[in-house]
């Protein structure tokens, strides 16, 4: 690039660069998700692993096909498609037919990212777009939860996992309601320890609250996420459900149950914090986070679905440009009224 004899180096700003790159951040997030992912595999067995792999394959293959031929390796090597596929996979039920997981991955990258113009252009979190697409497309398969098999039956794959492409899944018969489903439809609570350790039915990666928090702590120490977003979501959700709980402790779940059940931790730590789809300003981040927290509880209690994290995050994603616009910091010397 530069001739050897030049002493004076000319370079445009920025002159100081951090080590933080997209690839590095994505690697950190993947590492942070590892414990919760392993816990999911421990609880749900080989079938869950296959679901994760199919969702990742769908995402990466779509990215590969629709990238220009000369930048394919570059685009795949920043790990974003891998992370999108993994995040989507973690929000899927473990007994989902594999072909649906694959289509979900393809929809996440295709409809969630590429259609908007590629990385950094998307309005909505790609993994959640993939999940919303799957939930609207295959509502029964996406809400059929299998009970945990545990490590002893690791190699036992549920028959529904292996359904032929485009064909219906045959379920093994035993289905298990998630803690949120039990709460909503049968007014049955689940022990807090089961929720924290992950010993419940649910999506592959959402059950273990403790390990999700651990990964979040790692990301916080690496400064890969804006702490305001998870803090705002969890805080507002806890506060809102505490108020409801005080009003009627029989009908409404308590704040701890609200935080540790369903996908709230997974969503708050790993999905809402996506830098592309969350506000840039600190004030905006608070508004965004509190909005999600309130919406989650509202949907869970008054909506038709037992879980609302996905829709809450997608809704606030849509509001992000507006939030950014209204929370822009004042330009120095401008906009202050005299007296």
């Amino acid at each position, binding site marked *: 690039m530069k001739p050897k004899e030049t002493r004076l180096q000319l370079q445009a700003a920025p002159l100081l660069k951090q080590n933080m790159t997209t690839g590095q951040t994505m690697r950190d997030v993947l590492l942070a998700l590892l414990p919760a992912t392993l816990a999911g595999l421990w609880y749900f067995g080989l079938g869950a692993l296959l679901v994760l792999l199919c969702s990742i394959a769908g995402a990466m293959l779509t990215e590969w096909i629709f990238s220009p031929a000369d930048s394919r390796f570059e685009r795949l090597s920043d790990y974003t498609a891998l992370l999108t596929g993994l995040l989507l996979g973690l929000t899927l039920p473990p007994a989902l037919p594999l072909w649906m997981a694959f289509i979900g991955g393809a929809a996440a990258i295709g409809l969630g990212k590429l259609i908007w113009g590629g990385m950094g252009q998307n309005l909505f979190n790609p993994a959640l777009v993939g999940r919303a697409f799957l939930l609207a497309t295959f*509502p*029964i398969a996406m*809400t059929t939860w299998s009970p945990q098999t545990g490590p002893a039956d690791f190699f036992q794959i549920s028959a529904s996992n292996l359904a032929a492409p485009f064909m219906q899944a045959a379920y093994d018969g035993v289905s298990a309601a998630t803690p949120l489903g039990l709460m909503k*439809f049968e007014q049955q609570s689940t022990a807090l320890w089961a929720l924290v350790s992950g010993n419940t039915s649910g999506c592959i990666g959402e059950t273990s609250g403790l390990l999700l928090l651990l990964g979040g702590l790692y990301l916080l120490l690496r400064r890969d996420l804006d702490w305001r977003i998870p803090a705002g979501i969890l805080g507002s959700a806890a506060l809102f459900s505490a108020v409801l709980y005080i009003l009627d402790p029989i009908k409404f779940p308590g704040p701890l149950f609200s935080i540790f059940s369903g996908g709230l931790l997974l969503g708050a730590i790993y999905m809402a914090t996506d830098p592309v789809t969350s506000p840039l300003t600190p004030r905006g981040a608070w508004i965004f986070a509190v909005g999600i927290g309130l919406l989650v509880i509202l949907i869970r209690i008054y909506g*038709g679905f037992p879980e609302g994290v996905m829709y809450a995050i997608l809704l606030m994603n849509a509001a992000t440009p507006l939030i950014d616009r209204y929370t822009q910091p004042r330009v120095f010397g401008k906009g202050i009224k005299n007296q």
Partner: protein
Amino acid sequence: MSSSRNTHVGKGDPGSLKLIATLSFAGLLSGLIIVLAYETTLPTITAYKAKVLEEAVFKVLPGVTSMQRLVYRDRALTVNDQVQKGDEAIFSGFDASGRLVGYAIPGAGPGFQDTIRLLYGYIPEQRKISGMEILESRETPGLGDKIYKDPAFVANFESLSVDPEIRAIKKGKPKAASDIDAITGATISSKAVVRIINEANRLWLPRLEQASGPEAER
């Protein structure tokens, strides 16, 4: 091309009389054609509607071969074939020997997406429902539309006690004679159907009991 701007510049500016005449003529002609089309198609349309209703009544009241339209007015049920707006009407079904089998009662109420309209057969002697047919619904395809596409769900209503009240219960739970299996994944639609029938029962069963005097006989 904007006409309003160019009107006064145009050379052959037509007077408003011509404009009115053109529009009136067009309207007149259009009205004529529409009336013609309406009159031509009306018999077919009415016949089809009557057929659909009759089929539905015969379906929810097994063994019925003829029906009558009953209107509730001034605390009495009278036979009345003239459809009027605001009528509260049900249908009585008779078997081949002319004996009253039961009543087909229409009901409507909010479902998951839009209003569900349905018709169900009620046999007063046994205090039982003998069948249910969804006439109109926009429930979610694949889930809520099972309220009429799933034969197992529809079969729930083929001999269902109305006492004390119909309830939609999850599959596999113990049931009373007045309980039905809710559709997995479409609890709201199932419960909507049950609620509609219960509401119609609350409205009509006392009326039927009170009017089971001579007027309701054939």
